[in-house]
């Protein structure tokens, strides 16, 4: 059995940031990444990030992944990287079981940072399982990572940031977006993203939902219809769209299996995407020594995920006795950054969600 000081599950924006900050204080870290490469979903983000310089604003997501990897180089004697390493289970005694390069492996870390991210939500409508109906993130992966178009004509279901960004990226790849629909009465994503696709001629229809998908072996069309103010479909408002791809972008759910397995206290918080762990201000869960960072702690932007990663990293390292001289200053900085990223009207929902799961005092 391998031992290490801090095991980080997930090598995405939160996990890599956590590894860097924990190692920078002197802790020995192991990153466990199920994919063959690091960076998580940053790799497929071709747009420039929001935020400020500290969160790499105005830099494209895939370039941020490179920056994080370069930063890790500085601490390479402190960071062990396991790619193709899928954590299978987290046991109550703190042992991780792992499939690493198709072999079974166990690890016993002193602290664990769970940075597993989130998975795409699905939507219920007739024929929703036809090939050609993809999560918006799947389409992003297919296009931006592998250079393959999902099809020729797309209906995007969901006008949150992901729906709007992926619509834009579809157009950049030369795919037509027939319409973006959202059941809510207003656009959920940043209006600058909405304006960008609108001025390219893509209609955004709020208070609209998909009635059904058409097709035998794969998508051949879609019928959408309008919703009234009570979110009930209005008969007679059906429109048929000639599409071969339907993209579902109705949010993400935190990937929390390990937290349940470990016995962390969990709570269902819609604002954060589903069940998340109760945590203290240092991102430690109710199970001593298990920290969380990024979308698994509550779905929001990758900018915040990276800051949460930094915060969880120093907190886990400090709980092992590292970095006493710099810890408080860093903690203040990261906490301030998070506060500022969440301070505006868009952050209000996150702040409200977090207030329901964040406990003041550190768990004993």
């Amino acid at each position: 059995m391998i031992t290490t000081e801090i095991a980080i599950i997930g090598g995405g924006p939160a996990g890599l940031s956590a590894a860097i900050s924990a190692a920078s204080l002197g802790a020995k870290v192991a990153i466990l990444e199920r994919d063959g490469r690091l960076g998580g979903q940053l790799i497929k983000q071709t747009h420039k990030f929001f935020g400020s310089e500290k969160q790499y604003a105005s830099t494209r997501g895939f370039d941020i992944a490179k920056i994080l990897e370069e930063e890790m180089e500085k601490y390479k004697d402190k960071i062990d990287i396991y790619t193709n390493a899928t954590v299978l289970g987290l046991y109550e005694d703190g042992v991780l079981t792992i499939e690493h390069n198709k072999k079974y492996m166990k690890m016993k870390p002193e602290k664990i940072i769970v940075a597993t991210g989130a998975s795409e939500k699905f939507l219920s409508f007739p024929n929703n399982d036809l090939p050609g109906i993809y999560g918006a993130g799947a389409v992003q992966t297919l296009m931006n990572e592998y250079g393959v178009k999902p099809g020729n004509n797309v209906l995007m279901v969901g006008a949150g940031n992901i729906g709007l960004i992926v619509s834009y990226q579809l157009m950049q790849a030369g795919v037509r977006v027939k319409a973006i629909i959202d059941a809510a009465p207003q656009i959920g994503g940043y209006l600058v993203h909405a304006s960008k696709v609108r001025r390219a001629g893509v209609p955004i229809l709020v208070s609209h939902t998909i009635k059904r998908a058409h097709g035998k072996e794969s998508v051949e069309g879609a019928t959408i219809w309008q919703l009234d103010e009570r979110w009930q479909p209005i008969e007679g408002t059906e429109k048929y769209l000639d599409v071969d791809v339907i993209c579902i972008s109705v949010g993400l759910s935190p990937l929390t299996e390990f937290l349940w397995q470990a016995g962390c206290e969990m709570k269902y918080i819609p604002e954060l995407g589903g069940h998340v762990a109760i945590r203290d201000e240092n991102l430690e869960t109710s199970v001593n020594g298990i920290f969380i960072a990024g979308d698994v702690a509550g779905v929001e932007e990758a900018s915040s995920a990276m800051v949460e990663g930094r915060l969880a990293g120093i907190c886990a390292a400090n709980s092992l006795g590292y970095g006493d001289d710099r810890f408080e200053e860093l903690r203040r900085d990261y906490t301030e950054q998070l506060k500022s990223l969440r301070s505006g009207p868009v952050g209000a929902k996150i702040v409200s969600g977090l207030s329901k799961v964040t406990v003041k005092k550190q768990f004993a």
Partner: protein
Amino acid sequence: MIEKTGVPTKEDIEEITPPKEIREKQAVAVIECYKEIPCNPCYTACKFGAIKEFEDINDRPEIIYEKCVACGQCVIKCPGLAIFIIDETYSETEATVQIPYEYLPLPKEGDYVTALDRAGRPVCRAKVVKVRKGKHPNMTSTVTMAVPKEHSMTVRSLNLEDYFADNTIICRCEGITLGEIRQLISEGYTTIDEIKRISRAGMGPCQGRTCRHLIMQEIRNATGQNMEDMLMPTFRQPTKPVKLGLFVGGEGDD
């Protein structure tokens, strides 16, 4: 209701429109960031202090027009692609609009494109006057279009589909496009002769047989002139391409 449509209202646009005195004097950035989001690269990108320092990262950017030199740095740094540069001093009748552009193919300088508004609706034809290709790692290109001055605050996008058919060839001999003819008419060249002299449309080997009628139609469409009242150009010989030598010896059997 930009929250419902993604398209700003007249009031939204009025709020961010630079004052007339400024627009008459200089090219300026127009920041179309209508709602607070945690984002400040426009402020950090501006080397001229033309964007007011943010007190909070969610602040909406505020521009100090007098300090803006229209360098375009904020245009390519804005993650929302929400900044444009308009220049109403471009010419008597036209303004330029510079937009961030992240699609392929890029238009070429000199091309006519269809200028679109904030809802992607065709507004007018536009001539591409400058294309700045994006550089690694930023990669955002910008396209500057010339449009009639009254559209400087309307045009925010473009389409290569040639909605107005501007790239249609009118004069086959000289390769003059419909866009060029329309442009000349809008500049006040409203007779066949004027258009011929300034563009060579009708001066090629066919002597205007193929294009004259089409040019007349365009003049009619744009000015309302009757085709029967139109001044005809001067018709000169030769009516077909001939060798100069043909004339040199005078009449052969003299």
